[in-house]
């Protein structure tokens, strides 16, 4: 079968890193002045070379790409022949607009996967156009790579591409995260959750015969997690439950017919939503009324943060008030497979130390089933 792979390179991604900038979004000229060198084309080439030499796939691939340094040049360099140029960029310095226009074309061409090279900014540009219609796989090359769509290295990305084509890996959720520019302009550095894209994940398997395992869909696992959360809510009747952000928690809330904000924090009492998309202040007010509270969190992004990325509302003040023993962490096993530790960057050293002391957390991975996962509190 012919696989249709979209291929986009953001040639300027990663240039800010070595000159101390937090990305190239809008500061390219400054990066160039500071002597930044292109990184992305090299990383993209490395990935493709690894893919071609290690994973000779019987399946044919039709590549869809952009002209020049946004794709075609690199494919030509590694002697890939089956190329269709679907977008020609207008200006010399590639900007996010080019990426977005190219993605519109990839959508039209119904590609199976978009392989891109860049950082969080590029992932966000692509996500803005394709949403969760096409799975994304990122070759890590940016300065910020918090989104869950990136491979951990060029070699690992090549392997994932091969395993996607040979159908060993499956499609799952991946968060798109990036710097919150609004806060950044105010001098605050915060990584925000922008949306839930499709990424490539290791399936969850259960043993059904002696040597036969069946992969279980993410939804089946999430159904189990829903049952678990329902039990918890029934067990702790007089507790307020804060539902964190992300796709897994959103699925659970929807299954329970409770309103939920995908990218925000909501409050649930007695299986009803009593507070939507709450900010820190609103949460603190609720905590005054409901001194007994539990918060449900799920690891977010490539590094598996449960606090400190994408949920600034859960400030140190909030978490201290709730108590770290009242945090329920849930995750699908396939997500844990890509983030074997869970990370905390609460923004408060004392609070971080409490997590460091705790060392491990019981993460719920199925109905009444949990596993021990190490907590890491270093700043990333």
């Amino acid at each position, binding site marked *: 079968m012919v696989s249709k792979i979209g291929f986009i390179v953001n040639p300027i991604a990663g240039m800010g890193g070595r000159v101390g900038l937090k990305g190239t979004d809008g500061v390219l000229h400054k990066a160039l002045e500071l002597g930044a060198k292109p990184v992305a084309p090299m990383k993209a080439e490395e990935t493709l070379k690894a893919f071609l030499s290690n994973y000779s796939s019987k399946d044919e691939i039709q590549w869809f790409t952009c002209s020049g340094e946004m794709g075609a040049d690199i494919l030509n360099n590694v002697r890939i022949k089956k190329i269709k140029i679907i977008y020609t960029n207008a200006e010399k310095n590639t900007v996010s607009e080019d990426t977005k226009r190219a993605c519109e074309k990839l959508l039209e061409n119904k590609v199976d996967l978009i392989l891109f090279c860049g950082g969080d900014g590029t992932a966000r540009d692509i996500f803005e156009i394709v949403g969760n219609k096409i799975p994304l796989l990122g070759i890590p090359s940016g300065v910020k790579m918090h989104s869950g769509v990136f491979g951990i290295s060029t070699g690992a990305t090549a392997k994932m591409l091969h395993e996607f084509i040979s159908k060993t890996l499956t499609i799952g959720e991946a968060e798109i995260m990036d710097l919150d520019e609004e806060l950044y302009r105010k001098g605050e550095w915060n990584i925000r959750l922008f949306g839930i894209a499709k990424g490539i994940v290791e399936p969850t398997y259960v043993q059904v015969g002696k*040597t*036969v395992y069946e992969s279980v869909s993410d939804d089946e696992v999430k159904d189990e997690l829903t049952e678990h959360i329902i039990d918890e809510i029934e067990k702790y009747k007089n507790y307020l439950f804060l539902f964190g952000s992300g796709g897994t928690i959103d699925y659970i809330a929807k299954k329970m017919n409770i309103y939920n904000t995908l990218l925000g924090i909501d409050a649930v009492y007695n299986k009803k939503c009593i507070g939507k998309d709450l900010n820190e202040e609103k949460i603190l007010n609720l905590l005054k009324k409901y001194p007994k509270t539990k918060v449900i969190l799920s690891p977010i992004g490539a590094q598996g943060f449960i606090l400190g990325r994408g949920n600034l509302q859960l400030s140190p003040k909030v978490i201290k008030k709730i108590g770290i023993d009242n945090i329920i962490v849930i995750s699908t096993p396939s997500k844990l497979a890509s983030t074997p530790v869970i990370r905390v960057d609460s923004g408060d050293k004392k609070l971080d130390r409490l997590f460091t002391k705790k060392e491990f957390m019981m993460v719920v991975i199925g109905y*009444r089933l*949990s596993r021990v996962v190490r907590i890491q509190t270093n700043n990333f």
Partner: protein
Amino acid sequence: MKRNPTAFLKETYDELVKNSFDWKLRILETGSSPHSIVEGKKVIMLCSNNYLNLSNHPRLIKESIEAAKKYGAGSGSVRAIAGTMKLHMDVEKRLAKFKRTESSLIYQTGFAANAGLIPQLAGKGDIIISDELNHGSIIDGVRLTKADRAVFKHRDMGELEKVLIDADKKYNRILVITDGVFSMDGDIAPMDEIVKLAKKYGAMTYADDAHGEGVIGDDGRGIGAHFHIEGKIDVEMGTFSKAYGVVGGLIAGSQDLVNFALNKSRTWLLSGSHPPAVAGAQLAAIDVLETEPKHVKNLWSNTNYFKKELVSMGFDTGESETPITPVMVGESSKAKKLSDRLFDEGVFALPIIFPMVARDKARIRTMMNAGLTKSDLDFMLDKFEKLGKKLGII
């Protein structure tokens, strides 16, 4: 509603066949012997659990026949009603003595022991803590409970303690379950440490020693003897189907455990008891283990030689500490190929592939037999070397 109520039977099977996940039963034309005839081909058996070759031991065969002659072909009932013969009680008494525990109980199979007893040991408000690589029968036993379940990383005592600390605060009963010898890697659970940790946090311990019974510990007394902690593991569960060369599950522990288990395990209460021939052979197996130490000794000298030679050829045998020696191959397709070629060359060993083991850890699982001679081992080693080189494994 109009439906074909049984269409799924064929559909499911066809799907299994399509993905090569169906079991293709290999028919033995001899008994399970070190040299067997499988599908018309003479092979060295390297994938049976008959570690000590006791299934072919004259005393077991004789006692089996004698018992059948004396007591008949069947037992007539479940144990609880009218199916407990003196012979069954004798086996349990002898087994407890052999295992150096206060008491013991025989189940119909090892699976019946796990599926019957585990759900009775923990329920709502309790927690079962399980090694991530535990056997499927434990997992099924655990699934039948209303207890919470927590999984710790394979043999990781640091993680186990963290779960215990957490569990100590939240639950009534705590049960730690582990395989004794792990069937895929042949490594051994650090049972002494598990017992120590469990004691510290008031937890019960349960070891499924199916692959350790008759293999580890002095004269094959199992994991309790291996760590010199006989009687300290709350439930030592095992089987007569592997090294003992017969069939049946077993538990060994306190009299309280046995009284509880036989009154509560539904599998035990609701299945017929072993036929006299089985019980006779079980008794003889214990007898042989107590009086003929050569079998266990042979098993280990064969294992050590085979393992040493494989490693010197350049094979990776993983973390194995027992007669289960995995020969690491890497990719699943290669492991299948090696297994097929070995069979062609007269060695019967099964591949273990993803997702039973990690994607890059596909292997041939070899299980040593005390009845193999040095020339048998050299014959197999020669085949492994030849094919290993051919397939680029070594």
